[in-house]
C-alpha cells in the first residue's frame, strides 16, 4: 500500500538552516543543513525539502553546493524551494542533485513556467507551491511570502497548475503558518478533492496529531519545519503516532 509521506523542511539562509517564524524562539545557529538532513534521513524522513530564503547571489551559490553535498550522501528524494524563477534555475538545482523543484511566486505570475518546466524535466519534478489565505468567502493565493495578493482562488489555481503539468501541490496556509495550531483542514478538504495529483499539507503543524488530521482531510504528505527543527518530536515519533492512528507509513 502506498504510504503517506513525512517531509521535514529546512529553511536555509546563506547556507545555514534557520527558523524564525514568529511563534517560536529562533535558535542562533542551527548548523549545517547536510548534517541535519542526514539526521532526518536516519529518523525515517520520506523526503527532504530545502527552502532557500537567501536573497543574495552568494547565498544562491551556497544552496547549489549544499544540494550537491546532500545528494551525495542521502538517497531519498530532495526538493528545493525558494527563489526559482526560470527553467534555467530549475536546471541548476536539478543538475546539482535535487529531484524536484517547488515554484511559487514565479509560477503564480508566469504560469507558463509550470508548462515549460514539466515539458523539459517531467511533471514529477515540478511542485507548485500555493500560499493561501482565507478571506471572507474563500481562500486566495498570495505571493512574496504572503504579502502580495494575486486575486486567484486557491482551488482554481491548484486545478490550473495540475492542467499545466505540475506533479504535486505544496499547499501552505498563510493563516496557520508559524502558529502551531495545526493545518487549515478546510483548505485541505477543498484543494485535495479538486485535484488528482498529490497534495502536501504545510503550515501550522506542531504535533504528530496534526499530521493525522491532515491525512484524514485528504493530504498525501505532510511537511513540517519547526516541529522537527526544535526537537519537539522526531520524524520516527511522528510516524509511529500516525501508524497508531491507522495511517500507512514507512516505519
Amino acid at each position, binding site marked *: 500500500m502506498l504510504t503517506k509521506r513525512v517531509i521535514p523542511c529546512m529553511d536555509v539562509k546563506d547556507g545555514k538552516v534557520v527558523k524564525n517564524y514568529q511563534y517560536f524562539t529562533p535558535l542562533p545557529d542551527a548548523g549545517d543543513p547536510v548534517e541535519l538532513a542526514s539526521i532526518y534521513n536516519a529518523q525515517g524522513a*520520506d523526503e527532504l525539502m530545502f527552502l532557500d530564503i537567501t536573497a543574495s547571489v552568494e547565498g544562491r551559490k551556497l544552496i547549489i553546493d549544499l544540494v550537491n553535498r546532500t545528494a551525495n550522501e542521502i538517497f531519498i528524494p530532495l526538493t528545493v524551494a525558494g527563489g526559482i524563477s526560470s527553467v534555467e534555475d530549475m536546471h541548476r538545482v536539478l543538475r546539482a542533485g535535487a529531484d524536484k523543484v517547488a515554484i511559487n511566486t514565479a509560477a503564480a505570475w508566469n504560469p507558463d513556467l509550470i508548462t515549460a518546466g514539466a515539458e523539459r524535466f517531467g511533471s514529477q519534478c515540478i511542485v507548485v507551491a500555493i500560499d493561501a489565505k482565507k478571506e471572507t468567502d474563500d481562500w486566495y493565493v498570495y505571493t512574496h511570502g504572503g504579502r502580495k495578493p494575486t486575486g486567484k482562488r486557491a482551488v482554481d489555481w491548484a486545478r490550473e497548475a495540475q492542467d499545466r503539468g505540475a506533479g504535486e501541490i505544496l499547499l501552505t496556509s498563510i493563516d496557520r503558518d508559524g502558529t502551531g495550531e495545526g493545518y487549515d483542514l478546510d483548505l485541505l478538504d477543498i484543494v485535495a478533492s479538486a485535484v488528482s495529483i498529490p497534495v502536501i499539507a504545510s503550515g501550522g503543524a506542531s504535533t504528530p496529531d496534526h499530521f493525522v488530521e491532515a491525512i484524514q482531510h485528504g493530504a498525501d504528505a505532510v511537511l513540517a519545519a519547526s516541529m522537527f527543527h526544535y526537537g519537539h518530536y522526531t520524524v520516527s515519533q511522528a510516524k509511529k503516532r500516525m501508524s497508531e492512528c491507522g495511517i500507512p507509513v514507512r516505519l
Partner: protein
Amino acid sequence: MKDSSPLIAIVDYGAGNLHSVTRAVEKAGGTPLITDVPEDLAKADGIILPGVGSAKSAMDFLVEKHIDQEILNQVDRGKPLFGICLGMQLLFGENEEGPTKGLSILPGRVALLRGRTKVPHMGWNSLNIIRQNPLLEGVEEGSYVYFVHSYHVVVDQEPDIVVSTTDYEGAIVSTVARGNVLGTQFHPEKSGDIGIHMYENFMRIVRGEVPIT
C-alpha cells in the same frame, strides 16, 4: 581493477538529472560512465537505462544516436542491462506515452495508470516478491521503495518475467527480469539503504558473481 569496480554505462537521454544514479553506482562499488555514444556501451561491463524524461523523447534520442541498436547488440551478448522507471518501460514495446514504441526486448506494453485516485503514483510503496531474482537478493518481502510514475508496464504473455508487484489500487508490475535484462519501476537510487543494496546486487550480477536466472 575491472573486476573489482565494473564500468557501468549510464545512458544519458539529454533530459534530466543523473546525479543520484551516478552516486548510487559509486556507492555500490561501480565506476559510472555517463554517455550518449554507442561505443561506450560496448566498452562497459553493464548498462543502466535511467528513468528521466518522457518515453517518446527518450526513444527518439536513442534512435537518433544509434544507441537503441547497440543496446540490443550488447544484450544479445549477455551484458547486464538495468532499466529504471522510464528505463524499465523502454524495455517493452507499445507505449501509450507519446505514443511510441520501446526497445521491445521484453514482451509487454506500457499504459497510463488508469482508474487510480491519484496519478502520478508517488511515494514509498511496498514490494510483493513473486519469485527469487539476484537483483532482489537480500531484499525482504514488503520492503518499501520510492515510486514516481504515471505509466506502468502490462505483461500479457510470459508472466515469469514479473519478479515483484506493488499494490496501488490494483497490482502494478514493480520489478521485471529475464536473464541479463532487469528493470524496476521504482527508483532504487531514491529508496535509501535498500535501494543501494539493489545496486550492489546489480554489481554482483555484472561481475558474474551470481548466476542470472
